[in-house]
């Protein structure tokens, strides 16, 4: 009923293409995260949807309404700003009630809905206060409450947690998830924090240079990145990439340094087509483990730095002249300067084209 559709949306600032013919469909009630590094165009896309930014091409639909040429106020949506944009001259109550007042709702309805919204975000005690008297986290709640009481079909959030400290961010993240479950509005959430994206999104659209490079459910994005860019952007630490060459003869194998790595049967045909060509091997740090000796699918590595992080140890290692990160159990005994064998399962490997960076299937 209120899905959203971007149809070849284009937005250009001078020479920068902030939104390069982006098409994307979001289902009714879905929580869609736009993820990407700063400058990738995710906020522009959101602002185009909100009507704060004019589009240079393409159409935008909310439900079956074409909203491309509508003023923001006619698009019937709510938004949480990165800076919160909580009006400093209005009390918390008036801030939350702002949108309702603009719609000219009756007084008692406004009061009721503001109360509800305030309860949902535990702001009941602060309704008479001014924003300057609130903490950052409380202001953020006001911004969310202001959006929610609109009961709009579409809720937009532009990096709403980026100005909070780490602990608060963690709390609010869970709370937003709970809220979405409760209100079920179609939500578009812009962030550059991949943890937020993975935790909150029903689906994640990863953006780069004005394009969506991958759009999928979080686990697929994590496990099966569509490119070096996605793999390298998602995960802490991100996916490791090693340069290799597909063997020219025999069963297709990939030569990485002194090691030879055999693909899974499913991967074999794709590799067979690239005999003699360079290729990238992608593997997540947690999918590497110490092995006692050289065996199938092992790499020789030199430990450079050991960082005990409590839940695990993070190692910085040199493998065939490249630096990678490896995550090992906390009780693994290892010291910098050690030379070790690293083992991995072939089905955890993702192969990428060395030129384009795209994943090979």
């Amino acid at each position, binding site marked *: 009923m209120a899905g959203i559709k971007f149809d070849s949306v284009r937005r250009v600032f001078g020479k920068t293409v902030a939104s390069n013919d982006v098409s994307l469909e979001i289902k009714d009630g879905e929580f869609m995260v736009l993820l990407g590094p700063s400058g990738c165009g995710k906020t522009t896309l959101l602002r185009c949807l909100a009507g*704060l930014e004019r589009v240079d091409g393409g159409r935008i639909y909310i439900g079956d309404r074409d909203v491309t040429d509508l003023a923001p106020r006619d698009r019937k949506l*709510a938004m949480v700003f990165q*800076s919160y944009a909580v*009006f400093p*001259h209005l009390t918390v109550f008036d801030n939350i009630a702002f949108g309702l007042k*603009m719609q000219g709702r009756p007084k008692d309805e406004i009061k009721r809905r503001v109360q509800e919204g305030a309860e949902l975000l535990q702001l009941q005690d602060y309704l008479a206060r*001014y924003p300057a008297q609130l903490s950052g986290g409380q202001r953020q709640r006001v911004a969310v409450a202001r959006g929610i009481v609109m009961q709009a079909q579409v809720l937009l959030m532009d990096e709403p947690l980026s100005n909070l400290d780490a602990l608060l961010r963690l709390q609010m993240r869970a709370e937003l998830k709970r809220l979405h479950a409760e209100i079920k509005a179609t939500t578009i959430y812009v962030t550059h924090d991949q943890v937020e994206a993975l935790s909150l999104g029903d689906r994640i659209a990863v953006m780069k240079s004005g394009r969506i490079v991958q759009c999928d459910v979080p686990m697929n994005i994590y496990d099966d990145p569509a490119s070096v860019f996605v793999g390298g952007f998602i995960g802490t630490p991100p996916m490791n990439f090693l340069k290799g060459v597909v063997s020219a003869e025999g069963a297709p194998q990939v030569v990485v340094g002194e090691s030879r790595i055999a693909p899974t049967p499913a991967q074999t045909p794709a590799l067979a087509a690239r005999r003699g060509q360079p290729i990238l091997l992608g593997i997540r740090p947690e999918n590497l483990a110490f092995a006692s000796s050289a065996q199938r699918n092992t790499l020789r590595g030199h430990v450079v730095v050991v960082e005990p992080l409590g839940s695990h140890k993070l190692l910085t290692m040199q493998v065939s002249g490249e630096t990678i990160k490896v995550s090992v159990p906390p009780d693994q005994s290892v010291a910098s300067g050690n030379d070790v064998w690293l083992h991995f399962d072939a089905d955890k490997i993702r192969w990428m084209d060395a030129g384009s960076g795209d994943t090979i299937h």
Partner: protein
Amino acid sequence: MRSKVESALPYGLLAPTLLVVVLLIVVPIFQAFLLAFQGSDGGFTLAQFQKMVHDTAFLDALKFTFLLLIFIVPLQIILALAMALLIHKRFRGHSIFLYIYAIPLAISDLAAGIAWLSIFTERGYLNSILHSLGIIDKPFLFLSYQNLPAVFGTIVIAESWRATAIVMVILLAGLEVIPRDYFEAADVFGATALKRTLFVVLPLLRPSLQNALIIRTIFAFQTFSVVLALAGRVIPVLTGEAYYWYAANRNPNVAAAYAVLVMVFTIFITIMYFRLLKTTDAEAGYD
């Protein structure tokens, strides 16, 4: 020892300015106060003020000074706000318009008076335009003493023209420091342009409005060149009377009395602005 030097530093830096301002502004103001309260024998007297109050033009001057303030200031705020909001949109070519709107900032009231006289006089440009459009066949007398509302109107227009620029610049500068998010939030939450201006822009602009109002009021009380050019003394204003008593009547005492009155009114109105437009402590975040 060092901290002592540190804490004395700001005073040291301000000292030259304070010295000049005290010697050349504060002391003369004090002298003018003395003049206003001094009789011909040099003793204290209120005679100058009595003379001022009983002067034929006094009540009119009082009335018109405040009427002009009441008419001009809101008109200027509206015009300046319109200009500032337009420029704030940063449309292509906005800097040219900013330049144009700001020009009157540097135009003296002497020159402005001459320019507007050429427009409003009997056979001036406005009547020429109206005539060539066929709206009138005889010149309309905008500056007739028998039609004070018309004369008053011309003054309001000319003064608004001249002094809108400073208000515009102050308001625009104020707009620039307000994060755009606030305006966008208002848009997203359904405010029309008018509602956004009334409920979001104006309240957030309060500090700038306060500054603009104070500066404008100070200047509005002191301008009379334009009034003199367009209305002669048919529409007297307080500072104009002060000048007239000094320059034409050769009576610095009564002139000083008028000046004192102007200063008192200005201070009074400024305090009023501070009261009216004060951000509450809660709003500013002090509990």
